[in-house]
């Protein structure tokens, strides 16, 4: 198992190096901008992955919680003159508080009922933002959010914000890695695999699910705060369900229930969408069928498929040396949970 970890660290190291080097090799600023935006979506997708991938509850209000975080920063800085970082510190907690109460209500429901309930919660968030003119600026949106700054260091160029976002992405990945390997993270996975079994093991279902939901909305709020500081313009559309659908696509392409899946998915799909930009409004004609083919033929995503392949290889090697036999499908599942 030591070897595995070393390989993993090399993998993370290469990714981090590539990410740090990216702005210096990018041919124009726009590419850096797109990449930073992909990182923000990746952070949000990691939050969704925590509840949908690890805990098995598909929350369709995720973009709504991201919007709550974004509007926390936007409204506090623009309307109330609160410094950016103070507002940013509040983005995650406020989304998490709303998420906590939404979680208590919605997690009493299971499977589809939960998904549809959260879809409605997301829509309520959107409508409240869009119709609450006096408080949220309504359909006009929030304009002129100040750039984040630390002392004399102002993050107003694209490259500087890119590194800021990258720092938060690395932080989120690190926290997430610690979390999913902890006993708490394992109890999330236990719930995904079987509600009844998890309960029989002494896991408090409701408390654990609400914890996963609250953490996931916290991350959504955090990414929303970053989004506000980076794009510096907010519209109510951020809360719409199609943004949640985008996030689901990111998670699924990268590999649902894997640590790096959402990150790879967000980056890969963002660039695919960029390359389809020449199709303008028609890009969904390609994107829609692509999503369908993906769930049909590639349901475990990039990381998941790789994990299963690795596990099968290890199992075959194990069989050859006549040590204990491991069923390929079973260890595939484990690899997916651990990756």
């Amino acid at each position: 198992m030591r070897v595995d970890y070393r390989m993993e660290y090399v993998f993370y190291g290469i990714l981090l190096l590539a990410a740090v080097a990216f702005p210096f090799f990018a041919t124009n600023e726009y590419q850096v901008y797109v990449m930073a935006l992909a990182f923000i979506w990746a952070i949000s997708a990691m939050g969704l992955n925590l509840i949908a991938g690890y805990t098995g509850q598909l929350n369709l209000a995720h973009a709504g919680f991201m919007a709550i975080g974004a509007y926390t920063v936007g409204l506090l800085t623009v309307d109330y003159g609160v410094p950016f970082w103070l507002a940013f510190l509040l983005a995650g907690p406020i989304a998490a508080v709303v998420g906590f109460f939404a979680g208590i209500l919605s997690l009493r429901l299971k499977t589809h009922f939960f998904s549809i309930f959260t879809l409605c919660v997301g829509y309520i968030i959107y409508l409240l933002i869009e119709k609450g003119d006096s408080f949220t600026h309504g359909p006009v949106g929030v304009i002129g959010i100040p750039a984040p700054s630390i002392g004399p260091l102002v993050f107003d160029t694209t490259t500087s914000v890119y590194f800021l976002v990258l720092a938060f992405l690395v932080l989120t990945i690190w926290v997430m890695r610690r979390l999913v390997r902890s006993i708490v993270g394992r109890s999330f996975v236990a719930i995904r695999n079987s509600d009844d079994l998890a309960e029989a093991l002494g896991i408090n279902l409701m408390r654990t699910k609400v914890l996963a939901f609250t953490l996931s909305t916290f991350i959504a709020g955090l990414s929303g705060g970053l989004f506000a500081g980076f794009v510096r313009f907010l519209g109510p559309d951020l809360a719409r369900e199609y943004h949640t659908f985008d996030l689901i696509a990111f998670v699924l392409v990268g590999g649902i229930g894997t640590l790096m899946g959402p990150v790879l998915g967000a980056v890969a799909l963002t660039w695919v969408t960029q390359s389809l930009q020449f199709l303008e409004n028609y890009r969904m004609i390609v994107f829609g069928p692509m999503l369908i083919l993906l769930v049909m033929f590639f349901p475990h995503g990039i990381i998941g498929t790789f994990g299963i392949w690795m596990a099968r290889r290890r199992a075959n090697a194990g069989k050859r040396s006549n040590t204990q036999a491991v069923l390929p499908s079973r260890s595939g599942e484990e690899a997916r949970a651990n990756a």
Partner: protein
Amino acid sequence: MNIFFQQVLNGLTLGSVYSLVALGLTLVYGILHIPNFAHGAFFMVGAYISFYVAGDLGANFWVAMIVSAAAVAVMAMISERLIFHPLRNSPALHDMIAAIGLLLFLEAVVQAIWGADFHRLPAPYTTILRFADLTAPAQRVLIIGAAIVLMIGLQIFLRRTTTGSTIVATAQNREGAALVGISPLKVSLLTFAISGALAAVAATLFAPINLIYPAMGHLVILKAFVIIILGGMGSIPGAIVGGMVIGFAESFGAFYISNNYKDIIAFVLLVFILSLRPQGLFPSEVR
């Protein structure tokens, strides 16, 4: 009195349309056990086909409705064959995502053909019916009447005919139905065809008093989901009652509370009811 009557009429109109959409959704749920997110896209495509047949080809309103129902039924059957059937053994999440893919695709295709602009289907009957001091636009009466006829027809088909009973049987117990010789393949195709046709008819009826645009299905489908949760997933009477509840809540809410927030009423109602009764108002007979 007239104002109150108008709200009742409004509620019945909205409720009829919602019920028809929710009926299709609940039938498919009974068979496949997935919420079909693409159902709203069927609704939208139905409206566009009617708009094309009645507008560009100059056909009669009823002809347009039949053509549209047939076309969407075929489309729904194709999507069952190509997408939902191959995915029948995957986790529910994958069905949902595939349905979302289909939704995005259909919206993009419609937008590519007809553009993102708003269109309007001319109303076939523009007279206003009068009775004492009560007035009712013919189109609204038409929607309510057609919806009631369709609901009764569907109920007779499902309860009194052998073909209809196969759908109910499969929804109740898939293996049991297969054991007595009902082909699950035919039943799923039939269910999808009915559900698509219902969506197209609802859209055609609703189009003259509403606008036609690529995203028109979003709100309707969200509300249809609310309805089938309230009514119990897979339950047919539940879909009708639920549709009427939401229709009335919206029309009265828009008038007596706030027109601005009328779209939120359905969702708040759902959140409120499910908070008190997580199993829905009418726990379904089929699960």
